[in-house]
């Protein structure tokens, strides 16, 4: 299907590669960025559509490395269609879906199924991550080579860590030969035990069992030793505490092929947001102390933490409207990823260019994708960000099939005004007009 050329003019172009913000315009043709003009907009080509960006920020579309979708197996919580609609509304143009489905994404046929379903029903790019171990059982490794050929972009056991050190060692060893990326959920389940929130005074006051920071650091330290042993590419999916930052920093200084992410929740919320047992703030890793939050924000700013993820995990009332200790982990996130992360920009904790870099170019590089760039020839996956738009989040307006947002009724500032995937408009606020 051929699209008419599209000229996006009067924008502040944010190039994550350089961190520069310059006035300019972008010409989109046949799904790709055809030309970038700085300064005054050039004339639109014959037959082109035109969008006046109104001085808002035009950046590559966001790439979310961690989203749980529910298709196949839990379509009542989320489908590829609903997840991608939520993504588009949040300015996310690529999402990596986790293998925690039913059946598990642990064979090439299921990767193929997800990709075909996404092609037919999703409006953003969906990249499946396949399981490290068959059935997420933590014992036998999956077919890394065949899975990669089928389109798996990385390997992870999703919500679960690969706990057996021997299994992890062999997976890393084998993954290196195929250049495969192992993404680990860094949580030692025995140390988590019955814990449901960050260990400390607040958990003790609520009478809830705590999760020590060591549940994360012990697993992370072990994994990094195994990376040193094997030389494989390793990505810690999400870290949540100050000690983990130091572990990753040391690994990077030692030149190990280690990267890491952070959930937007751990960047803008802390354990106090649990308040009186709000289950929407029950997360894995848990919301930590304010000092940990500040440490991960700082680490993101410095680049010790590479990428920001939504950790989008739709849950329904059956799994969330329960006493805190009995509820499931997880929160919606993909649609609020940008708006929530923008809090850090508005508080002055982080500059918009670095934030956008961590949401675009950094994940693209880790995943080896050509998206996430604002250069001629790159895919026309773009987001127009109105950085100052204020609103109160209403969960009923969310596109997701589930409603477990920790930001319900929160005051947010900054949103995606327009989202393009492959040059096609997949989301547009009414204030943005398309002229023929």
């Amino acid at each position, binding site marked *: 299907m051929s699209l008419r050329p599209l000229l996006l003019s009067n924008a502040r172009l944010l190039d994550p590669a350089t961190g520069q913000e310059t006035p300019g315009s972008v010409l989109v043709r046949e799904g790709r960025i055809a030309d970038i003009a700085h300064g005054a907009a050039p004339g639109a080509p014959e037959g082109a559509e035109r969008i006046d960006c109104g001085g808002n920020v035009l950046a590559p579309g966001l790439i979310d490395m961690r989203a749980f979708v529910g298709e196949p197996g839990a379509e009542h919580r989320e489908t590829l269609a609903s997840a991608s609609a939520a993504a588009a509304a949040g300015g996310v143009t690529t999402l990596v879906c986790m293998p925690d489905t039913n059946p598990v994404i642990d064979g090439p046929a299921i990767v193929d199924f997800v990709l075909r379903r996404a092609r037919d029903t999703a409006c953003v790019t969906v990249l499946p991550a396949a399981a490290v171990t068959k059935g997420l059982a933590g014992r036998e490794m999956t077919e890394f080579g065949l899975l990669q050929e089928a389109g798996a972009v990385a390997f992870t056991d999703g919500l679960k860590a690969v706990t057996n050190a021997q299994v992890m060692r062999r997976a890393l060893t084998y993954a290196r030969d195929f250049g495969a990326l192992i993404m680990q959920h860094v949580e030692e389940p025995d140390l988590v035990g019955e814990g449901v929130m960050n260990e*400390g005074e607040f958990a003790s006051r609520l*009478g*809830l*069992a705590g999760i020590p920071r060591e549940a994360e650091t012990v697993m992370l330290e072990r994994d990094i030793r195994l990376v040193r042993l094997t030389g494989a590419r390793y990505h810690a999916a999400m870290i949540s505490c100050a000690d983990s930052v130091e572990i990753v920093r040391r690994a990077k200084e030692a030149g190990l092929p280690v990267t890491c992410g952070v959930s937007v929740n751990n960047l803008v919320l802390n354990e106090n947001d649990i308040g009186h047992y709000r289950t929407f703030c029950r997360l894995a890793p848990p919301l930590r102390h304010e000092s940990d939050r500040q440490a991960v924000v700082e680490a993101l700013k410095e680049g010790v933490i590479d990428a920001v993820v939504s950790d989008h995990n739709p849950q329904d009332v059956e799994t969330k409207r329960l006493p805190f200790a009995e509820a499931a982990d997880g929160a919606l996130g993909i649609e609020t990823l940008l708006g929530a992360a923008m809090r850090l920009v508005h508080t002055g904790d982080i500059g918009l260019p670095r934030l956008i870099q961590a949401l675009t170019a950094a994940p693209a590089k880790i995943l080896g994708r050509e998206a996430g760039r604002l250069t001629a020839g790159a895919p026309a996956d773009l987001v127009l960000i109105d950085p100052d738009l204020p609103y109160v989040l209403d969960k009923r307006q969310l596109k997701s099939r589930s409603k477990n947002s920790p930001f319900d009724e929160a005051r947010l500032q900054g949103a995606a005004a327009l989202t393009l995937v492959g040059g096609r408009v997949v989301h547009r606020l009414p204030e943005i007009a398309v002229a023929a």
Partner: protein
Amino acid sequence: MTQVAPPSFPHRHLLGIEGLTRPEIEGLLDRADAAVDVSRQVEKKRNVLRGRTQINLFFEPSTRTQSSFELAGKRLGADVMNMSVASSSVKKGETLIDTAATLNAMRPDIIVVRHQSAGAVHLLARKVDCSVVNAGDGAHEHPTQALLDALTIRRNKGRIEGLQVAICGDVLHSRVARSNIISLQALGARVRVIGPTSLLPSGIARFGVEVFTDMREGLRDCDIVMMLRLQRERMNGSFVPSVKEYFRYYGLDGDKLALARPDALVMHPGPMNRGVEIASDIADGAQSLIREQVEMGVAVRMAVLEALASHLPNG
């Protein structure tokens, strides 16, 4: 006893000690003193709750707390219905919220709830129109236990202000300990906790208590020694190595009690594990208030129900 009209209780529910002011706690204790007198009469029945329905909803088995609330409600004239988890639809997969909605539709005036999960009673309270009393939620709070303990202490020592109280044993899993720490501190006592670190909550020192892992040291100069129950499943290697070892270091026996003040009094919320956290002769000895605690339990629950009655519709 001179009767002064207690100040009205400003809360619709009693979900915890946290959030209560010292005058509110003392007001409940004053009401409870009067209820003790009522309970010691031949004619024990009053009509404060006549025509009212009280549901005791117990998701965890409990003999003494449930019967204590039942007696308290009946002595005030309420119609009391006991629901325990074994006979309820919760076993059939109904959620707490659904149970709350179902019970709410039956128009009770007061629901007394015990649940194994911290915060469950708060959750339920948000979904019903009547008053809710927390009869214990996970390791969070057990407010009526703390009130009955305070009443027992006040009646025996004449005061709470300035007393040195030691709370000993499995503080980690204890809602009784949490409620008592908050309550006793609000009433002016100095509180210590004593136990192996594996049974103490993280950050416990931030509660403003003194922390001891050596019981002999911790009991020195104490006016009140409050023992906690150690659950059977935690005795054998998971939190402490064995009953034998636990009793040796953290069980209250005559030798250890002798280190407290000579007029020290011993308390236990029950049910006791004799020979685990407390020696039999101490439990039954002259310094023990354990039986009296049970009597005070009924009185305190009458006081709480009566205080909440003023918030009932048409009350």
